[in-house]
């Protein structure tokens, strides 16, 4: 992974010191809260219902065992003994005290971490495929490009005060997308030209929130040396032309859709032609230098092969076999595996992890790998370099930590925003609903029968729980002080991205889980084979059978929707 040099170390130290000064000036009354707000936001400090929340960047979801231990230390020392992994591969602490945040930043700087630009109207943490560098199906490791983009975007002086937040994601697998690039302000896919030259396909104007839009392809092929000048051209067109009069119309997706992708592309290409500077081009040696940080580790002979994993998947121990099927991914290196740790195994909210779990996982990352951990968009963790023959032993260790539930990619591997329990934007609670769904559908055989299925819950239209792109999406709304839940079907964040549709009136809290069950039953009843996934079946038959099942008779009669 990338290691800081003296400049990088100095930058995060100076940042912590700068923020300490800003906090002191705020407390002394030299700056108003209105003036302070953008400053704290650009440092990841967000005011929630009960306290400040501090969001810490985990660049492209990659971090080390040592960094995990420091996060555990922070959870113990300055928070309430736990942290929350987010859908953008970051981690949040929910109970920060303003005057202690500078100390937390110092602690982060010690381990080459920071909270820079994890909130606010600036370029946010760069995200990517959580299997980057180990995925067998990738064209090339996307992470060197993520790190170059991270550095370029860090304190970029021109783009520190954009109309709205700005998210960039990378993927490198042809025909597959584990990073949801079409739902980002900019999505970058590593591709090859017809001649085999490496470059990028660039998508722009995707996003969720209250106006979900699937991005458009602005450039089918960009030679790789031009990445940053092209990103600058897009950002400049947005910075100068994006709306600033209405916060809900300020994202780049609104600009792109109001101009149309053709006109937006013209503006960007014009800007790029006028502004691209040779000095911004990457030289091959610079690319190679960054790639060297992400070179594969020296894998010792594994003494095992893919066949071993395949045999584990049929093992006599049915629970282990299920884990090997659902939570273990074939690795680029034969004899190795990438293992998903489910943070939806226990009673805590999705993505939460205690300090002791963090410490233990850090130890496992050292023992069963090279000290690397990945955070996923799905609020799980990955140990990326596990010797396949070590899987039985690792599995037992994960069980003791309560992160071994074999539900990766299944219904209960759901994501969920903090909702009204923590967030001052929410209209409804989402955590208790997620909890009820996980309890109700806890039969792993049933979950396997349902197959790959994404369920996503947001407590308000800002869509932090990504409900628009869940195969099943749930949106909490408020009707005259009572919590109701809209159910939408057919969303996907994959390469064939689609937005879910609401099929009818919202459900009250006491029947929404029953409605989800009815959707599942309907799917099981109409699928053509066990292999036809929920989203495939839904796309084949359309919404009518599901609408009828939901709003046809009994459920409606007993519990009239609002």
């Amino acid at each position: 992974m990338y290691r800081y040099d003296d400049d990088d170390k100095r930058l995060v130290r100076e940042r912590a010191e700068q923020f300490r000064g800003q906090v002191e000036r705020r407390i002394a009354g030299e700056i108003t809260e209105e003036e302070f707000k953008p400053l704290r936001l650009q440092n990841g400090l967000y005011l929630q219902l009960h306290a400040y929340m501090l969001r810490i960047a985990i660049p492209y979801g990659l971090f080390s065992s040592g960094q995990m231990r420091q996060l555990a230390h922070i959870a113990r020392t300055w928070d309430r003994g736990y942290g929350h992994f987010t859908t953008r591969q970051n981690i949040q602490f929910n109970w920060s005290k303003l005057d202690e945040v500078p100390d937390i930043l110092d602690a982060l700087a010690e381990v080459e971490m920071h909270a820079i630009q994890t909130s606010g109207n600036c370029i946010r943490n760069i995200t990517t495929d959580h299997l980057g560098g180990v995925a067998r199906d990738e064209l090339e490791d996307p992470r060197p490009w993520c790190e170059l983009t991270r550095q370029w975007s860090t304190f970029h002086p021109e783009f520190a005060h954009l109309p709205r937040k700005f998210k960039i994601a990378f993927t490198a697998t042809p025909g597959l997308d584990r990073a949801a690039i079409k739902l980002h302000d900019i999505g970058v896919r590593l591709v090859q030209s017809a001649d085999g030259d490496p470059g990028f396909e660039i998508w722009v104007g995707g996003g969720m929130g209250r106006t979900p839009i699937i991005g458009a392809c602005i450039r089918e092929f960009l030679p790789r040396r031009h990445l940053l000048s092209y990103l600058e051209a897009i950002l400049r067109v947005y910075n100068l032309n994006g709306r600033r009069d209405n916060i809900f119309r300020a994202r780049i997706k609104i600009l792109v859709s109001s101009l149309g992708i053709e006109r937006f592309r013209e503006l960007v290409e014009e800007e790029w032609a006028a502004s691209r500077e040779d000095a911004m081009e990457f030289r091959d040696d610079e690319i190679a230098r960054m790639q060297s940080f992400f070179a594969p580790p020296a894998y010792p002979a594994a003494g095992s092969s893919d066949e071993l994993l395949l045999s584990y998947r049929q093992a006599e121990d049915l629970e282990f076999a299920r884990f090997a099927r659902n939570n273990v991914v074939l690795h680029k290196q034969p004899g190795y595996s990438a293992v998903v740790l489910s943070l939806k195994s226990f009673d805590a909210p999705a993505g939460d992890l205690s300090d002791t779990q963090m410490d233990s996982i850090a130890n496992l990352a050292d023992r069963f790998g090279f000290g690397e951990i990945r955070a996923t968009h799905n609020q799980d963790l990955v140990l990326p370099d596990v010797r396949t023959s070590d899987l039985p032993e690792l599995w037992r260790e994960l069980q003791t930590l309560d992160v071994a539930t074999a539900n990766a990619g299944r219904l209960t591997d759901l994501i969920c925003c903090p909702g009204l329990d923590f967030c001052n934007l929410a209209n409804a609670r989402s955590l208790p609903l997620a909890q009820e769904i996980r309890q109700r559908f806890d039969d792993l055989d049933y979950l396997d029968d349902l197959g790959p299925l994404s369920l996503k819950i947001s407590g308000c239209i800002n869509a932090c729980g990504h409900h628009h792109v869940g195969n099943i999406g749930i949106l909490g709304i408020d009707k005259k002080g009572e919590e109701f839940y809209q159910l939408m079907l057919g969303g996907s964040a994959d390469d064939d991205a689609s937005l879910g549709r609401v099929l009818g009136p919202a459900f009250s809290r006491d029947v929404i889980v029953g409605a989800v069950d009815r959707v599942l039953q309907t799917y099981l009843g109409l699928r053509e084979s066990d292999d036809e996934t929920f989203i495939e079946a839904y796309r084949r038959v359309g919404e009518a059978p599901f609408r009828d099942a939901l709003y046809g008779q009994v459920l409606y009669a007993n519990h009239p929707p609002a």
Partner: protein
Amino acid sequence: MRIIRQREIVDDGWVHVATDEALPSSGDVIVPLARWQSEREELLARTTGRLGVRLPNDRPLAEIAADLPRLALVAIEFPKYRDGRGMSLARLLRQRHGFRGEIRAVGNVLRDQMAYLERCGFDAYELTPGKSLESALLAFDEIAVTYQGAIEPRSVSRLRGSAG
């Protein structure tokens, strides 16, 4: 009026002249863009004093590009300090149009954006009234490391020592 120019606190000799104010017969004046456009010939006919134009941040630079050789100063307005359009405008003035005169930030200008502004090409700052200029001077050196060129473009990794 005291302002910051080239990282120093100075007494500023420029005078802002609003659209409906009488034009002083001599001295350096900054006029709003609209006045520049409507009284261009009169303004150019002045025999003493330099000219500056105050540019709203939602106007394209094309409106003054041809006149830049006649201007010694461009003031860019910040209606709110978190409105970053002025940052792009300053970069374009320096890089695309080669403007060598003073670029001054006016309006809601605060200490904590000044380091960014300088890297985009600003060299003078009229701070929001009531804010300490002495305190603001400290902002320029808070973070010494920069990852990207701004008005002096360079690749990310060229900055990094070992890449040469």
